[in-house]
């Protein structure tokens, strides 16, 4: 379906191009990509860069060439000073372990005035400082965006309407953005038909650039839903909570279900639950060095699932074509529920993703449009947490440390 939309859009854009060939520079094709190889010292689980990926480096692969690799292509069309359009497709490892491209952007942009524009269609999901270009390795300092903040959110794009307003106030360049719409993302594994949906998304951001400093605040709220054949199915945890009786094998009869609790089922099953993303980001880049700091928070209805605070700080120094950098990242999930219901506790225990990490790496801009990066991460999962890992195997221990080594080649064209 997405493929068909993409083809239609491409054909549509090409069609309009033929009718207005005299316009110079009306169409622009460009792209970006990363070819990376990742190794993890934790062999009883897989490290994943994106929450929707089913597997990665560690247990499934010793050397993973897919998890941090991606390829993107974009067509920009400028019809006149008022109307322009952009279509972007990305290929990366998805929920079904294939690299089938998906449409990351497809919107029409209308410049109402030089400082006010409207976007209609599919836009990047912009919850965090670099969300809008997190797949573009060449544009970021690291081999992957810090997982504490960027891994857990599976939403890439919002379908809806956005308003962008740019105005200089003295020496400060202010940009305000408001977006309304909906979003969805498939989750792994494919067999569960799982998806995360965000409905009634409303978000606002303000960023201020002053000299070499940029400061950004962001707020988003939506109605979040998780649909999954396994979790919602007859053998899933919520079916157990919602059933007044249960089968007791030793006697071969139905007995009252001690875990029966409709209130808890409604509270913890995520169906149109209010979800809030907030973030504060700061970037200082005088040229010779740069500092990036971000702190984020996810909160909402009292279901204990998606609640956490996370952040990171990166410092980099430029020596000609060489840019060594170091990052510290942290993620705290809010204190686990004291609810005594074992079914609820079982659900919650699998959702603990708290971790911290230290990373060091270097970027080498060795050729025009090409950058080579090498990065080493030391990751510590919090007690009771599997952090950024998936495909957990028997014998895996939570609360332990592991190392990641990655080499990435970034390019733009």
């Amino acid at each position, binding site marked *: 379906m997405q493929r068909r939309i993409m083809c239609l859009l491409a054909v549509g854009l090409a069609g309009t191009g033929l009718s207005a060939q005299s316009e110079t520079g009306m169409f622009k094709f460009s792209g970006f990509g990363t070819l990376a190889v990742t190794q993890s010292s934790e062999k009883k689980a897989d490290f994943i860069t994106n929450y929707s990926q089913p597997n990665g480096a560690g247990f499934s692969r010793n050397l993973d060439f897919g998890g941090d690799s991606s390829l993107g292509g974009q067509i920009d069309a400028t019809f006149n000073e008022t109307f322009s359009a952009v279509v*972007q497709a990305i290929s990366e490892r998805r929920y079904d372990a294939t690299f089938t491209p998906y449409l990351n952007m497809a919107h029409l942009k209308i410049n109402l005035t030089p400082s006010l524009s409207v976007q209609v269609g599919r836009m990047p999901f912009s919850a965090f400082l670099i969300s*809008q270009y997190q797949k*573009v390795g060449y544009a970021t300092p690291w081999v992957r965006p810090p997982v504490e903040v960027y891994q857990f959110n599976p939403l890439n794009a919002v379908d809806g309407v956005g308003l962008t307003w740019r105005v200089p106030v003295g020496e400060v360049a202010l940009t305000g953005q408001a977006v309304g719409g909906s979003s969805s993302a498939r989750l792994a594994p494919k067999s569960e038909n799982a998806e995360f949906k965000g409905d009634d998304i409303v978000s606002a951001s303000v960023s201020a650039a002053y000299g070499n400093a940029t400061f950004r605040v962001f707020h988003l709220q939506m109605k979040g839903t998780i649909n999954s054949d396994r979790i919602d199915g007859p053998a899933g945890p919520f079916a157990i909570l919602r059933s007044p009786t249960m089968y007791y094998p030793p006697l071969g009869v139905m007995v009252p279900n001690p875990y029966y609790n409709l209130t808890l089922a409604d509270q913890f099953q995520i169906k149109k639950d209010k979800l809030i993303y907030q973030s504060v980001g700061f970037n200082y880049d005088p*040229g010779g060095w740069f500092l990036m700091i971000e702190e984020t928070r996810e909160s909402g209805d009292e279901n204990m699932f998606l609640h956490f605070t996370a952040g990171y700080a990166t410092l980099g120094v430029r020596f000609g074509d060489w840019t060594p950098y170091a990052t510290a990242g942290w993620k705290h999930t809010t204190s686990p529920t004291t609810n005594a219901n074992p079914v609820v506790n079982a659900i919650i225990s699998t959702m603990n993703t708290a971790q911290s990490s230290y990373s060091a790496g270097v970027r080498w801009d060795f050729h025009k*449009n090409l950058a080579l990066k090498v990065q080493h991460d030391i990751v510590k999962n919090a007690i009771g947490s599997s952090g950024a890992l998936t495909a957990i195997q028997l014998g895996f221990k939570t609360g332990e440390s592991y190392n990641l080594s990655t080499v990435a080649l970034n390019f733009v064209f």
Partner: protein
Amino acid sequence: MKINRIALAALCLMALPLMAQVVIISVKNPISKMTKDQVAQLYLGQVHTFISGAQAEPLDLGEDSVLRKTFYQVSLNKAPAQMKAYWAKLEFSGSARSPRVVLTSAEVVKLVAENPKYLGYVEAAAVTSGVKVVYAVN
């Protein structure tokens, strides 16, 4: 290739102190002066208007132009790869497009003279009566 690079570097070294570089706008534009920050904000796509509120569109020279490298190094303290990464952020997030590229200073001067929305950087010697200097790069 290597010889070219050395020649280019030598050319830069020789040319830099000699070639005074300026930012120009049309004489039809009412603005008479710009600060370094205002020029930087326009060339970084952070602002799309002059302080008068009128539409502003910066012009770039080709990627291998010495004037271009000098302009970004001196005015924004950014090397070509840094600017490339910077525009990759904005272009691949659909936020903005990098400045229109014009191949020669003469062409920049001609476009700027014709349309008050443009600004460009050229060597001081290229300035004509149709444009005015609003900022001295070096």
